[in-house]
């Protein structure tokens, strides 16, 4: 009996050594990918931020399905890495994607936070990525060669939003943010762009139920417009509580609010709200709209689906061109210049897409309606 502990320990050790031996032999042949090449989705599919990731994956799926239909003998697979948008879970998933030699490119990471946590890994591994949604301006300042953004960053969106607000003739704009990396970043840019027309109204806690303190401050300041930097759930609550409190200021917000969830949360209070996004309206490309609807039981493409479609099609173009290694694909992307469904796809050194613009949207009759480009 006594010895059984020893025996267990010894057998564990032997097994591990076997592992080392096997592992060694595995490593030498790890470069080659057996089976189909893969394009990976990286972002949240479940958890609280799941909705956004599902939109993106649908765009990716559509692009790959079209490719596979057109090229029966060069099938591509989609691999999904569900990080739940959590920077703590992301590294292990990123390493997994890197270790899978079949993964040739990443559509994602979807959020700025997880991007900051894992992009350095992709850079080191030379695994090219195109994010359809992470808009934090700082991401492109790290000198990552693999990094590409399929839409403009918040540093473009902020001034765009500000010029729309000014064009609407607003003189006193309350700027509120949700104190998140994205929300505060965007709100700060908008505030700077607005100059002395802006009134800083501090942050709110998006998780809290009651925003009355910040609304009281907005009321007190007598603003004629409010810009909110943050996500749709909080934006909906804010718009509704403002309306209930009798604040009539025009509501503005950014791409984080561009979701039907905003309309659901705010109800009638959402009417007339103006939102900005560097993403293109769903009807900017009728062909894509129709293909997407056909593939998704008539459902309209939601935010970032078109960008994800574009990102995927760049990878697919590279593969169609006969590029198989990650390095070749990266080179291909860096010199890519062609029209996508949302914009001209061509990247500068930092990975920012050159042909980009800021679009305005309005909530009208309970739906999101594109207003076109902001000049």
């Amino acid at each position, binding site marked *: 009996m006594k010895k059984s502990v020893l025996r267990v320990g010894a057998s564990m050790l032997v097994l591990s050594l076997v592992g080392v031996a096997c592992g060694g032999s595995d490593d030498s042949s790890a470069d080659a990918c057996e089976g189909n090449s893969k394009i990976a989705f990286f972002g949240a599919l479940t958890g*609280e931020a799941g909705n956004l990731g599902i939109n993106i994956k649908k765009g990716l799926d559509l692009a790959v399905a079209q490719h596979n239909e057109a090229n029966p003998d060069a099938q591509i697979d989609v691999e999904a890495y569900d990080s739940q948008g959590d920077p703590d879970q992301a590294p292990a998933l990123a390493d997994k994607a890197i270790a899978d030699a079949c993964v040739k490119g990443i559509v994602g990471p979807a959020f700025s936070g997880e991007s900051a946590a894992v992009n350095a890994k992709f850079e080191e591994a030379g695994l090219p990525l195109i994010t359809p949604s992470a808009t934090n301006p700082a991401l492109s300042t790290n000198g990552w060669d693999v990094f590409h953004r399929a839409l403009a960053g918040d540093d473009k969106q902020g001034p765009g939003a500000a010029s729309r607000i000014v064009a609407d003739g607003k003189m006193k704009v309350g700027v509120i943010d949700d104190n998140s990396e994205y929300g505060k970043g965007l709100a700060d840019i908008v505030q700077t762009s607005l100059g002395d027309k802006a009134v800083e109204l501090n942050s709110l806690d998006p998780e809290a139920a009651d925003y009355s303190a910040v609304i009281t401050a907005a009321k007190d300041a007598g603003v004629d417009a409010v810009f909110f930097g943050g996500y749709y759930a909080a934006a909906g609550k804010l718009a509704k509580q403002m309306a209930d409190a009798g604040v009539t200021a025009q509501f503005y917000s950014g791409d984080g609010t561009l979701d039907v969830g905003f309309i659901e949360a705010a109800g009638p209070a959402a009417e007339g709200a103006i939102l900005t996004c560097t993403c293109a309206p769903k009807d900017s490309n009728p062909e894509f709209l129709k293909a997407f609807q056909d593939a998704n039981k008539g459902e309209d493409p939601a935010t970032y689906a078109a960008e994800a479609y574009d990102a995927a099609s760049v990878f697919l173009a590279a593969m169609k061109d006969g590029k198989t290694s990650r390095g070749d694909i990266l080179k291909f992307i860096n010199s890519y210049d062609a029209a996508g469904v949302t914009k001209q796809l061509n990247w500068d050194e930092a990975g920012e897409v050159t042909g980009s613009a800021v679009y305005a949207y309005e909530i009208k009759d309970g739906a999101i309606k594109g207003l076109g480009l902001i000049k």
Partner: protein
Amino acid sequence: MPDWLIIRTFWELTVTGLALGSIYALVALGYTLVYGVLRLINFAHSEIFMVGTFGALLASSQFLSIPLLEDGNYPYRTGMTLIIFLVFIMLIAMLFSGIGAVVLERVAYRPLRGNGDAFGAIVLAFLTTFIVSLVFVDQAKINVIIALLATAPISYAYMRFFKQGRKAPRLAFLISAIGASTAISEAVGVWSKHGRDQYQTPRLLEKKTLFTMFGTDVRIDYAIVIVGALLMMTALTLFVNKTRLGRGVRAVAQDAETSRILGVNVDLIIIVTFALGGVMAGGAAMLFTLVYDQTRFNIGFILGVKSFTAAVLGGIGNLKGALLGGLLLGLVENYGSAIFGGQWKDVIAFVVLLVVLMFRPTGLLGESLGKARV
């Protein structure tokens, strides 16, 4: 007089702060009652509140078929009709939360007291098989069928285990509470494809100004929340002080062993305690949806932490303390936000708690259901 924001908007902040504080206070009562009787932080109480908000949602949208979006007309809901609607929805919310709290007690706490019964055994057996079946297949319907089939034999085994009457240490209760809290909110979250969405609750009334006080408009929903909370709290105090079961609750809180010797059915009293806390949380949930028109699977977490803070601030185990703590916390948060900005709100709340506990280590009004003569 200096022209600070806090001074200009003092009364407005007071009204909104009191409304939120009333909800904190009602939820805090649940923490306080359970703590008073079992010396247990019922961490899952926040989810009982959440269940209540969904009860209110069901009652208004399904049972009463009130449409979600209204264009500002509330024709059939004035006067008496409105009151009946409100009371009905509140009763349903209370029912949801009350039942939720009692089930929670019997499944997650009673077995730990060495007192598990068949009900707990069956639910736990169902959950066990459900989890195990997930390893093999992940399709809700099939999982449930497997779980139902295997429940009987396993609950029999669990009953045999319960017969040993093993009592768990205090920390185990807290972890069980944390587990139950996670499980309840996640169960709602994975319930359907849209489980994690933010749900809107129908608007029951037009949020117009009821009266003006100190130059501040007091909205009708805020007034209902504050008055409703005070009424519920009065009813609870009367129940605890004037009824036989209420006396039982106080007796068990002060000395459980002697209470048993005198013939108090302690298990029943514990159920009553959880039910009372649940009913208060249900009322709070309905009032919450009245003002904020929305709920979500994780709405309880932050509110629960705040309410627990309120309970401790006033003196946990003390009913009046819960009221005082709740209102105070609501006000402090609002004033603090106005002075320092909303991003510092929680910091201010916790600093106030800390300062109070430094000078009064058992909260503002001291501990215990009985000692301070609720």
